[in-house]
């Protein structure tokens, strides 16, 4: 009796049938690992519509393309970050990374350790064949010592990664190792991984008879037989003894299985306490609830308000430079001036900041250009007004003080010298006044008030509004008093000598 030819396999449901037979060599362990994954998926009860597989490059990298699931064949080493993006943008997905040892542990090694550390919920199946099979059998990060490959012809001299140990050290909550000769255990491990919420890692030791086997005198099936002989199955294997040498036992089993909040779970716990969110997903499937429209906040008027009547008209752009030591709040001063001019006076303002490499204590400057028409050049080149709050800053920026310009200084902290006679100096003991108010830190706001009294380019009302919107909650009273102190000090001075800016 001639049996009818059999063309279908029960696992075909999960395969892109038209792409089978796959490219893998006879005796290669990849097919067995893929077959185990198909079994695990079939019995997982998961909605397969929501399962995505991501691979990198190499023989193993082709795996994604054989599964009839959403599958992604990415660049060399980048399967894990790609999978991270997939998972976080749509948390409904079960994301599996199926890739090789060279791809995941060498070129993608950085991604591997960080994904394990941050515990993104992806399932990583690393098929380890001890060499780069697709490119002709070169040595790699897992090649055992003394093993021969096309790039270690005299025997490998480097210590290979103990991948399971590495993953455990990085905090992966699930770590297991089997060989491709243990399809049943692979399947069980994969099933457990699919259920786990968190980063899980399975190393599958698989033969590459064509390259690794041939060069190490273990052709065809002999390599797999060797692994089977070498394999030591333990229920509680000691991960520190999981190093793989050419002739050592290959310790198999489940090394780590613990509970640790996954990246998304931890994110939800931490952020939800501070921000009202009900879901983290990037695919837009969680629609935004529009908040009821509230009256416009002072900081952000909903509609451009009427142009204020006291708006200063500035024909020629005015260049202002503020300098001080890091921490004196020079940047904030500039920001308030800019906001006042640009938002509340309806003028144009450009604000730039000079950065010094020190985070604190170095002399730094911020610059503002104000005009009633469009400002083109962003940088202050010839300041009309300079505000200097410390001697260190004076020494650095004295060169920018031009003849005929105005210089505003803290009386006690800056001793101006070597200046052209035409520079008009206005001084205020800002720090001293701030101390009298109880807080030295508001010296910058005192000087800002002083500046407002003297400089006609920004209206008082605008400055007050900008100030209120720019200072931390709970410090309003102190800051407003500081501003007023400086302003009144300036008003008095102005009565004596009006320079008519």
């Amino acid at each position: 009796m001639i049996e009818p030819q059999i063309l279908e396999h029960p696992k075909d449901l999960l395969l892109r049938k038209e792409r089978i037979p796959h490219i893998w060599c006879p005796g290669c362990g990849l097919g067995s690992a893929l077959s185990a994954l198909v079994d695990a998926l079939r019995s997982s009860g998961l909605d397969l519509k929501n399962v995505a597989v991501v691979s990198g490059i190499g023989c193993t990298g082709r795996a994604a393309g054989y599964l009839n699931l959403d599958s992604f064949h990415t660049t060399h080493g980048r399967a894990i970050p790609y999978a991270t993006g997939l998972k976080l943008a749509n948390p409904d997905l079960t994301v599996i990374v199926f890739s090789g040892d060279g791809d995941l542990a060498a070129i993608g090694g950085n991604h591997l350790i960080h994904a394990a550390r941050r515990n993104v919920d992806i399932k990583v199946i690393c098929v380890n064949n001890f060499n780069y099979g697709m490119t002709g059998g070169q040595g790699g990060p897992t090649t055992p010592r003394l093993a021969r490959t096309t790039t270690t012809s005299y025997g490998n001299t480097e210590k290979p990664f103990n991948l399971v140990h590495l993953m455990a050290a990085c905090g992966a909550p699930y770590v297991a190792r089997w060989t491709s000769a243990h399809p049943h255990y692979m399947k069980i491990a994969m099933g457990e991984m699919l259920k786990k919420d968190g980063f899980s890692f399975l190393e599958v030791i698989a033969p590459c008879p064509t390259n690794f086997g041939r060069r190490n005198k273990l052709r065809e099936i002999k390599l797999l037989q060797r692994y089977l002989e070498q394999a030591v199955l333990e229920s509680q294997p000691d991960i520190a003894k999981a190093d793989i040498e050419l002739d050592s036992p290959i310790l198999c089993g489940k090394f780590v299985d613990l509970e640790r909040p996954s990246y998304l779970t931890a994110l939800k716990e931490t952020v939800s306490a501070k921000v009202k969110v009900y879901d983290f997903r990037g695919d837009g499937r969680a629609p935004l609830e529009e908040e009821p429209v509230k009256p416009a906040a002072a900081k952000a008027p909903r509609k451009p308000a009427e142009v204020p009547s006291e708006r200063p008209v500035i024909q020629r752009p005015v260049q202002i430079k503020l300098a001080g030591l890091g921490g004196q709040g020079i940047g904030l001063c500039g920001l308030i001036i800019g906001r006042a001019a640009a938002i509340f006076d309806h003028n144009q303002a450009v604000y730039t900041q000079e950065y010094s490499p020190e985070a604190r204590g170095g002399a730094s400057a911020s610059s503002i250009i104000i005009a009633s028409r469009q400002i083109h050049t962003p940088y202050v080149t010839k300041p009309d007004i300079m505000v200097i709050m410390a001697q260190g800053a004076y020494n650095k920026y004295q060169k920018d003080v031009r003849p005929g310009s105005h210089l505003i200084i803290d009386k006690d902290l800056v001793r101006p010298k070597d200046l052209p006679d035409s520079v008009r100096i206005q001084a205020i003991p800002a720090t001293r006044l701030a101390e009298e108010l109880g807080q030295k830190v508001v010296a910058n706001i005192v000087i800002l008030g002083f500046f407002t009294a003297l400089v006609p380019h920004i209206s008082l009302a605008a400055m007050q509004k900008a100030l209120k919107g720019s200072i931390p909650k709970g410090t309003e009273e102190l800051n407003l008093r500081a501003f007023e102190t400086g302003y009144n000090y300036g008003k008095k001075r102005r009565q004596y000598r009006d320079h008519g800016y």
Partner: protein
Amino acid sequence: MGKDVLTGTYFLTGNEACAAGALAAGCRFFAGYPITPSSEIAERMSIRLPQVGGVYIQMEDELASMAAILGASWAGAKSMTATSGPGISLMMENIGLGVMTETPCVVVNVMRGGPSTGLPTLVGQADVMQARWGSHGDYEIIALSPSSPQEAFDYTIRAFNLAETWRVPVILLMDEVVGHMRERVVIPEKKDIKVANRRGPSEPPGKFKAFKPKKDLIPEMPVAGQGYAIHVTGLTHDERGYPAVEWEAQEKLVSRLVKKIRLNSAKIASWEEIGVEGAEIILISYGVSTRICRAVREIAREKGINLGLLRLEVIWPFPEKRVRELAGRINAFVTVEINYGQIALEVERCVAGKCITRLVGHGGGTVHDPQKVLEAVEEIAS
């Protein structure tokens, strides 16, 4: 949940405005790695994304950041990353994957002085050709260049819309000055912001081919989890998305990737012309250098020189046709950019000897001195 569009008038840096624009465009996923001078974008996104239910993740490097936003895009998210200097070099590998797999996403490059570590806190405009062809292989891409914080907001939205429409990574070529300077930024009402979304599959799974182009050369895009069992590969692939490592498939695919941008460039390219009609000399510029050129025009006008300005809003694709047209009518093009001649070469190519071409360039670290630009103009005018 918070609002994604915070309508109002603000005094923002270009970087902050860029983040606001991304949210307004519908961006809900950001992966990045800190680098000066782009870090403020990541910082802002890390605060704002959770408020609108999106995800911010800081990756281990720029290779990972770029890969993650591609993955997120295929999960249905509008995704973005931001970087600068060495970071954009690291992203090139997966920008290529994005091009090959037609993955919409936005990559912000806040240009600083290079090569290598160069000038981390100071301006450069020398990544223009890298934006075009920095990844290996032949392709066409879209790049935009804002010249103010307001444009940083507006162009980020445009960048997302272009990415979603033409299914290509779009590069927002900011520069350090625009990224760090503050100016007034008006964020309009949500209803007034135009947002484009990718075209989803019009056929059920089964018959549908994920990489079969429509008339406009753009395929419809299903995403993971919709039941289409898509296969997405960086290998040369056929219309099903399956690897096809042969020259015929390469010809078919890569020529389409190039053509979908080139043949549609009339719809994508965008530039601003200021005083171009009747001008003898035209400045060509983009990004922060545009601002200098505007200042130069004003001084030139006072001196009686009729100077036009062609300002690139979209750098790639380049407005070839328009430049060619103008070349026949004018005396000279002067390209003003912070490098030693990148767009200048493109201008020369399009002009093809029909008028004088000049470059006013420098190595970066600061903006142009308007006087230098003026000198170059005066030299030609005299």
